[in-house]
Structure formats: structure tokens, C-alpha cells
């Protein structure tokens, strides 16, 4: 059941920890709980849709420290913060760093569960996106240097003749490269190809 969504709970208070586990389990979610940020960070990052319910005040590493550490490790798990007494600066800091929600104990069960849902949905979407990008990336890797050059010009809106002039090649040669690249990328149309390249732009640019 590695595909079932997973909720992580980190709280150093055993009562709170167990009550959260009970509450979250009532909506059929799997819960894994930890008594400190450190033990949570030791766990292998999950391969499935997941969300983290994190207490701010903890023995040892605090909740905010944990958030920072996850970011450093490039682990993009949505975080729902819970705290005994939240102040505004703390809340702002957490939200800026991408937290889903900042809840002050005690909170309404629905608020927490809603936040968990949002977190899981966000994680699921992120994961899908990551998967698609990874796939496009694989396909893009199969293109030759000339094919990459041609399609980047196609995407930027140049005509075949213009591309041929720019590259000093025959217009038909450009047409062949373009068709082969579209095939490798599984693009149905020029518009489809533009969307794919846009999605790859990040890593593409990074690579550039």
C-alpha cells in the first residue's frame, strides 16, 4: 500500500501525539508519529503522497528548525504547524517558508483535517508534476543537439524558412529534424510541444 497517503505527526507530548494519531486515523489516513524532529528526519523520505503535522515547540530541534532542515534537504513535504502559543512573527515565518497552515492548540478537528487534506492534495499534485517533468526530461534527453536547437526555435515562434536561414541549412532538413523531435517527445501538435518545453524550462534553463 505504498500508494496510500501518509500523515506524519511530530509532537513531544505523548497525549497529544496519540490523540492526533487517533483523530487523523478516523478519516482513513495512515499516521506515523515521532516524538522529535530528529527522529522524523532520520526516516527515509516517503515515496507516497504525504503531509507533516509538526509541533513548533519541541525538545531539541524546534518545528521551525525542522522546516528549514527539510528545505535544505530538498524534501518538499507540506507542513501543518501546530503550536501551544503561536505569535504572529513565528506564524509569518512558517507560512513564508511554505507551510500549509498554522494552527494554535487547541484547534477544531475539522481545521486540522482540512489542512491535512490541502497538504496531501498539494503533495499529490506536486508529485504528479514532478513525475511528468521527469518523463519529459527523459524524452528530451533522447533528442540530438540539432533537434534541440530546431525545436527551441520552433517554440519561440520562428518559421521553418527562418530557422533554415539561421542554421544555414535546407528548409527540408529543418522539417525532418522537427518531425523527428515531435515524435521523440510524443507531441501531438506544435501547441503540445510548446507546453512540454515550457514545463521543462526550469531544468532546461538551469542546465543552460
Amino acid at each position, binding site marked *: 500500500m505504498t500508494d496510500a497517503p501518509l500523515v506524519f505527526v511530530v509532537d513531544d*507530548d505523548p*497525549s*497529544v501525539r*496519540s*490523540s*492526533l494519531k*487517533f*483523530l487523523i*486515523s*478516523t*478519516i482513513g489516513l495512515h499516521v506515523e508519529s515521532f516524538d522529535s524532529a530528529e527522529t522524523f528526519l532520520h526516516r527515509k523520505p516517503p515515496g507516497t503522497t504525504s503531509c507533516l503535522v509538526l509541533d513548533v*515547540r519541541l*525538545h531539541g530541534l524546534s518545528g521551525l528548525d525542522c522546516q528549514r532542515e527539510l528545505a535544505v534537504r530538498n524534501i518538499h513535504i507540506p507542513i501543518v504547524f*501546530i503550536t*501551544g*502559543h503561536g505569535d504572529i512573527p513565528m506564524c509569518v515565518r512558517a507560512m513564508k517558508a511554505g507551510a500549509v497552515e498554522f494552527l494554535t*492548540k*487547541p*484547534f*477544531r*478537528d475539522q481545521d486540522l483535517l482540512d489542512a491535512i487534506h490541502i497538504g496531501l492534495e498539494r503533495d499529490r499534485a506536486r508529485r504528479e508534476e514532478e513525475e511528468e517533468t521527469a518523463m519529459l526530461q527523459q524524452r528530451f534527453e533522447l533528442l540530438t543537439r540539432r533537434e534541440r536547437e530546431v525545436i527551441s526555435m520552433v517554440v519561440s515562434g520562428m518559421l521553418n524558412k527562418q530557422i533554415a536561414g539561421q542554421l544555414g541549412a535546407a528548409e527540408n532538413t529543418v522539417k525532418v529534424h522537427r518531425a523527428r523531435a515531435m515524435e521523440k517527445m510524443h507531441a501531438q501538435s506544435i501547441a503540445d510541444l510548446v507546453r512540454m518545453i515550457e514545463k521543462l524550462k526550469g531544468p532546461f534553463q538551469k542546465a543552460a
Partner: protein
Amino acid sequence: MQFSTGNFTDTRPVVTSINCWNEIGTAAGNGGSLVDMTKENRAHWQNDQRWQTAFENSAIGIMMVDFVGRFCGANSAFLRMLGYTESELYQLTFVDVTYEDDRKRNLELVRELVEGKRQHFQIEKRYYRKDRTLLWVRTNVALVPGMGGVAPFWFGIVEDITQRKRVEEELGFQIEVLQKIPAMVWTVTPDGRCDFINQFFIDATGMSREYIQSHPDEWNNSGNDLPPLFSGLPSQERERGANLFWNGIRTGQGWAFEAQHSHTSDGTYHWYFDRAVPLRDLQGKVVRFVGARTDIEPLKRAQEELRESETRLQAFFENSPSLIFLKDRQGRYLYVNNAFKKVHRLTEEQIKGKRDDELFSAEPAVSSQGNDQEVLEAGIPMEFEEVAVQEDGPHTSIVHKFPLFNTDGEIYAIGGIATDITERKRSENELVTLRDAQAELARASRLTTMGELAASIAHEVNQPLTAVINNSSACLRLLADHNLRSEVLRGALEEIVADSTRASAVIARIRAFIKKTPAEKNELDLNELIQDVLALTDREFSENRVLVERELAKALPHVLVDRVQLQQVLLNLIMNGIEAMATLISRPRLLRLESGIDESGNVLVAVCDSGTGFGLDADRVFTPFFTTKEHGMGMGLSISRSLIEAHGGRLWATPNSPHGTVFYFTLPAAAGSPS
């Protein structure tokens, strides 16, 4: 009463019938010549009734005594003097009725008469009356020779001189008094000669009678010289003395003056009062000056002492910062001291004889007069609080008022001492305000300490509450889905109960801290208290990464303390220690709590940190408002020290080795606690 010649028929010899004759032994030779001449004798009397009547009615006592000494005739005046009847008297001899002390002289005179040495004699002597009282008489006795067979007899005329004797005695007494009177008494003639001085004068001055009574010719060369009477005057007084004397003599006025005279008993000078008045004859001419000199040294000394004591008292009154006054029964001022005049800006003339309502505004005057009246009625000292308006506003005084009694026990005046307590009252009020402020600060500081703890305490409460809500919400959800199994519900409920209990325990602990309860002392174990406070601050330690060490003595004596206050102190010291180490990076943050017993048997607690320390001036930290914290009030340690001191203990700080500070406090072990 008939004048009777008595029983002349008794022929017994005088010698044998009366002992007293034997004593003298003079009548023996005459005894044989006695013959019975009664008849002739009686005839002789009867022949001259006129004599008889004259004798009988005479106011002077007349009596006859026969040759053996027995009374043989007496007129009624004589019988009255002695109180005997005629027949009683004739049983007695003249010796029987003569006072013992006078008998001897009487008999001697009788003998002289018998021996023919004199024709009659006169004697002043005392008779015993029948009632044994004494009677002074003067008796003239003559021997009537025997004639014509009539035996010779003594004839006596007796005069009662009691009155005269009394006067004489009185005079003698008076002279005696004059001599012994404890004053120097003299008389001086109009020409300045002293002609009498009493014995006391001689005793007191040591001068001779002759010297003092010497004639002015012997000492008055200039006509204005000092009389011997005044020769005890010291040199600087002699001229004045002489002038006074001669002036008094010449004007006939006498004199009166006080002066010192040498006193013989110790050679010192004594103060005397010297006074002389003229004694005039019927024509008003001065015949003598009579004078007396009285030793007034003790009086003078007493006066001096009185004056000194009065001056002293006066100094006290005048220098007293209190207002002192004396009023008569009508409330009129008799005396006021300087402070009174100064405070009211009045002179003595303005005050004396005036009443309060004439001097001061109506309200205080009425109040003061009412108080006076109370004292008059009660007759005892009383204390009042009176308000008087002065230049800078109303002043409150404590006025002690008391009655003054004359020798008849009646109140004649009211004395008063007023002490201005305005300033004292003001400072008392300020002190109260200050104390209130301190108490408020103490509370505020406690609340600040609480504020520092509030975060963790809120967390402590929130944790169980969160758990309770989570568990309850979960159950509700399952219930809505008809999916709540009883064992799940039981588990949840058990957790809910546990967490609720935990929450309420936390709240109870908070309440114990912030409640403004008066000190309530109980015997308790300080170690337990330390554990309690450490439990409460556990979170602070973990969040500040402070390592806590405990070194608590076993079997610590109990202490009698207010739990909340002691928690307060410990909390304050612990929080201070944590803060002192907040900036430490290079060395461990170590807080050590120790408990033990010091050498005096007191319970000793030490809170040691490894922080930055206070340097040498460790004691300064106890000063109010001293703080090293950005948001501190600087009251915590000051209050902690007063709390510990209020428990009879001490709180102090010393540098810790090698770093930081140690705060120590001691508390006396509770009596009878196990040690």
C-alpha cells in the same frame, strides 16, 4: 462657822506625840514647862467677841498651832484654803499639811523662833489641800507667849499667793524662752547701747556678753561706727550695716535687712535677717529697740535651689519644640513658651489673659476649649488631637492636657503640651504609599516572572486540552459514521480523563502562584519544594538547553515557611540563573541546586549558575530596580531578599568558581523538626 479654840485639854507632851520635834530636838527642854491653861485662854477669847468676829470674817486665813504643832484654831478662810472641816484640821499638825520640800526650811524657822532668835517669820511655801493638790501661800508666824496659865502658841496669818506664783513662773518661763528662742534677740537703748542679748545670740556669734553690751563710748568714735552687735558682718558690708543701725536708732524706725554674718559654729558666713522695732512708753517716747536676727541660710539656699530649678525648667520649656501653655479655669492663657509664640506669631502681651476664641479661628478654638472643659470635668490628664491653622495650612498636634491642683485640691489651671505631628503624619502617609507601591511592585514583579513563565504554562495547559479535544472529536466522527467501537471509546475516554486531570493540576499550580494570599506558614521539606519548582521550570531548562544538577541533603530539617513565597524565591533565583546563562556558547549551561545545613543549624540552599556573573559587586544585585535584563524591573532579588528575611533567614550572592554566581539563602530550622 464658829471659830473654835479646839481641844486644848490634851496634855500629852509634844516631845513624845510628834515625831518631827524629835527630828529637830529643840522642843524637848520646853516640854516640862507646859501647863494646862485652857480655861483662861477660852475666857480671854470670849471676852473679846469683836476680835473673834473680825478673825472669823477675815479674807486672810488665820490659824493657831499649839506647842506640839497641832492646829488648835482656824478661821473659815483658812479652812476653805485647805478644804478641811474644823474637826478634821485639829487632828493634823502643820507639818502634815506642808509640802515635803518646804518642811525643812519651815522647821528651821520654827526653831529659830523657839530659840528666841526671832520674834516672827515669814515663809512662802506650799500646803497640801485635803484633795492633795498644792497651794502656794505666804505665812506670817509669830509666837504668842504663854500668859496667865495659858500655854504659848503660834499664831499664823496665811495668804494665798497661787496667782502671784503663777505670774512669776510665767515670767520665768518667758525669760527662759527669750534666752532659748532660736533667734538672736537683743534690746538696744535709744543711745545705741545694747543692754540685753539672749543666750542664743552668744552661742551663735561666740562673742562675749560684755563686748556686745559695752557702752558706745568704747566703740563709737566717729558717731557712726559699727556697733558690736553687727561686728559679724563681712568687711564690704560693715559700712552699710553701721548706716542702717544708726539711721534706725536716730529716726526711731528700727531696721530690717538681710545680710551675711560670720557664723561661729563653722567659721562660714550665713545669711541672716535682721530686724528691730522701737518700743515706746505711754507718751510715745522710744525707750528701747527690740530686735531679732534669724538664720535664713537654709531658706536662702532653698531659694537659690528653687531659682536654679526654675531656671532649668524654664530652659526646658523655652527650648521645647512642643508648644507648652498654661490656662486658667476660664481658658485665659497664663503662660506660653517660645515655641507657642513663634508658631502662632504672637507676642506674650498679645497672648496673656486671652482665650483661644480671641486668638484663633473659630473652629479650632471651639474644639480646644471643649477639650479643656473635658479635662476640667474629668480632673485627669487627657490626650487630644487638635488642628490649628498656621501660615502654611492646617497643622495637627497631639495635645496632652492636664489639670493643676491647688493645695485645697481644686483645679486652678490647665497645662498643655502640644506636639506637632503634621510632618510625622505626612511621612507616615508617604511611607504607607511607598509600602503600597512596593507591594504593588512585588506583585507586578511576580506577575512579570509569571509572564516569563506564561508561555510554557500555556503550553502545559494546552497540551492536555488539545489531546482532550482531539480524542473527543475523533470519537464524534466515528460515532457519526456508526463506526465507534466500545474499546476504542474506552481508550479515548481514559485518555480524556487523564489529560483533563493533568490540565486541572497545571491550573491549580498556576493559581497557587498568582493568588495574592497572606503569608501562611507551614512546616515543610525544602527539598520537596525545590523538586516542585524544578518540575515547573523543566521546560525552561530544556528550551534553554540548561543542564540541571541537584545535590539535596538527605533528612533535611523542616522549615516553617509560606510555600508560595518560597516557591516565588526559588523560581526567581532559577529564572535568573537561566537568564544569566542565555548567552553562553563556549561552555555548558549548568544550574546546580544544593541543599544542606550550615554551621548554625539553619537550612541552606544554594543556586549556582555558570553564567556571566555580577563581578565583585555581588550585593548590589539586591538593590531595588537593579537589573541587567532588558525588560527586567530589578525587583525580583530585592523582593526575594525581603521574603527570606521575613522568614528569619538571609539571602546573599557570591561569585561561583570558575564562572557564574551562587545565590545562597538560609532559613531557620523549624523547632522540633527532625534533623
